[in-house]
């Protein structure tokens, strides 16, 4: 049945289009601590949210708030101290091929060419089929690396490496794709190109996507839903639906009033969280932050 639909799509267009099975992930009251006793450090505390079907969910939060920790839990490499994570109602207990995770620190294998890196997933699962080889060519073309197929990763620029990483993940056609700061370290220009490029890929398949970032513009440009994290121990502080039309274009998105409103809202929450981390637990400082936020809230209502 599955093979059948795949054949059909291959017949319908000559570029092999992946067939996506919509999935949903539910994170329920998850906590995670490291160490024990005196050295215990709580990184995530009673965190709940849903990564909705066919949507691009973006999580943004100050660095060190536990985003990468959460990703490791979603990947199944670590287990939550409390709470559960379910994929389509089934509890996640370990790594699985239904989710494809690109870790913050993950990198291409330096001992394989770009092409072999991209084909690694299919080969590892013994699916070195004609269809997958075709898909690899298609993706190489899509990420603009056809000419670099035989090069080794150290010979590629940072932007090229990121694109190759994306292609390496995408070829596996996972139900859910999870990415941890995949465009970190790129300069402004290539970053903006990557956003347009990545949201184009999403619009093509509407695969369930979860994307972690620290960059507010990136978050707003990409997101259907925006989750804002609290400071450590991490928790989802706020969910914002970003109902900007797709396909999105840079110029258009950043002139849009709705986009600017969302950005302001997100920034004020992030700012509050950042102030808390700055006060670093000192009573006087946190009192100050509270008084300050009350005053600015009062000023806002007065203005209206």
């Amino acid at each position, binding site marked *: 049945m599955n093979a059948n639909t795949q054949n059909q799509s291959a017949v319908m267009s000559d570029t092999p289009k992946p067939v996506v099975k919509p999935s949903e992930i539910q994170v329920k009251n998850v906590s995670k601590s490291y160490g024990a006793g005196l050295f215990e450090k709580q990184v995530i505390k009673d965190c709940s949210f849903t990564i909705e079907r066919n949507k691009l969910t973006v999580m943004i939060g100050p*660095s060190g708030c536990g985003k990468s920790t959460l990703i490791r839990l979603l*990947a199944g*490499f670590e287990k939550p101290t409390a709470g559960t994570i379910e994929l389509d109602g089934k509890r996640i207990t370990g*790594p699985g*091929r239904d989710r*494809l*995770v*690109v*870790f913050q*620190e*993950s*990198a291409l*294998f*330096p*001992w*394989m060419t770009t092409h072999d890196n991209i084909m*690694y*997933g299919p080969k*590892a*699962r013994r699916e070195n089929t004609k269809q997958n080889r075709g898909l690899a060519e298609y993706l190489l073309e899509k990420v603009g690396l056809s000419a670099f197929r035989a090069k*080794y990763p*150290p*010979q*590629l*620029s*940072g*932007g090229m*490496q990121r694109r190759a990483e994306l292609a*390496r993940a995408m070829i*596996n056609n996972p139900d859910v794709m999870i990415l941890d*700061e995949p465009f*970190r*370290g790129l*300069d*402004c220009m290539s970053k903006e190109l990557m956003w347009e490029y990545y949201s184009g890929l999403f619009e093509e398949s509407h695969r369930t996507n979860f994307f972690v970032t*620290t*960059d507010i513009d990136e978050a707003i440009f990409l997101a259907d839903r925006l989750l804002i994290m609290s400071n450590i121990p991490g928790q989802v502080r706020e969910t914002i639906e970003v109902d900007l039309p797709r396909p999105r274009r840079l110029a258009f998105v950043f002139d849009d009033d709705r986009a600017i409103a969302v950005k302001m809202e997100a920034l004020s929450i992030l700012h509050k969280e950042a102030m808390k981390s700055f006060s670093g637990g000192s009573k006087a400082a946190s009192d100050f932050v509270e008084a300050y936020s009350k005053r600015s809230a009062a000023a806002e209502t007065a203005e209206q």
Partner: protein
Amino acid sequence: MNQNQTADLLKRSMPFQTVPGEMLEAIAKLARYESYARGDVIYHQGDFADDVFIVSSGAVQHTLGIGFQATHPEKIVRSGGVFGWAAVLDNQRTRMAKTVCMERTELIRINGEELINFFKATPETGDIVMSRFATMINKEYTMPEEVAGHVPHFTQVPVTVATGLSLTMFRLSQWLKSPKPYLMMTGFGILLATWYLAVEVWKLPRFADMPGLTTVMKEWFSKDPVYGLSIWTPEYYQHIWVSVRRILIAFFLATVLGVPLGLFLGWSKTFREYVFPVFETLRPIPILAWVPLAIIMFQGSETPVIFLTFLASFYATALNTMLGVETIDESYSRAAACLGASKWQVFREVIVPGAMPFMFTGLQISIGVAWFSLVAGEMVAGEYGLGYVINTSYTMVRYPTIVIGMITLGIVGYVSSALVRMAGDYMMQWRVRELALGGR
């Protein structure tokens, strides 16, 4: 902080992790210890970048200056963390950030220039350290790639190298262009001249019985050698062949057994806990101490010698392979597992190629110690071979032949090391490119 503590700290920091022990101590000598109070500014943006810093304890806030693109313009560096790497960049020797101590902080600083000069003398290690700096710049500091391009590299390798053979040829041509061959010839010249003068001209007291340069050369190239061994006699080649054959067998066994053992030691924690203590207890025993047992354990004269040769090689190979596995970044295994690789596939496709660079370092050490223990073995238990030639020539007072044996040993040993190195170049083309560096 004493030298050992400094070396330990270096070992914990990302760029120096893989540097061998004695080199770490040498680098530790370059380091200066300093402590700062809370609020002290270590440097401002725009200052001249002289030193690289490694935090021992405390916390340093690192704020990138305006004009430098970064996703995390601020970060906190703690124990084991490295900052101030602008000091090792080419043409980029100004501070790009401001650093302030957030609490009482102890750190060591190393002058960038001195570090680079140090690495010029040891280009292989230098490039590994520098490629780690480059990775750090790309990954942690999320700086534009162009900065990584300023990281110096020492072994000069063009990115267009296509095969291992052309790499070897390239190295050769680089070597010929460098002053090294002439320095080498001068070195040999001085050695030979000293030998000639000491023995044959000045006739120094303790050198009276020593065979002189001309005597040895005459004997070595003579068609009718006085003591029966020269390049014209078949026995000469028979001795060489017997030694080479022993080395081949022992090196082959050491590789075939040592590489898998090293891989498993590095890969499986449980296996390691069983085997490693035994391994570490046996390893420091000098090969000569094994001679009596080897003779008792094995029959004939051939097997004990091969066993002794094997033993030292085996330790070197296994240990370096194990270290190689340990240095592989865990993120590679994770990425592979996420892409659907089984545990066994991770081993074959990530651990094995990832450990390859250290493995070949191990094999080079291995071939060296193989010759060392071969000669020891042949002197005691051999019937043929270069070690045997040296030993019997001594007892039979054929002094020039001793020297012929020694020189031959040096040449054959050097050739075998070179062959292992070529094999390594051939099998690790990706590595060569990584060392070519910085994503260029």
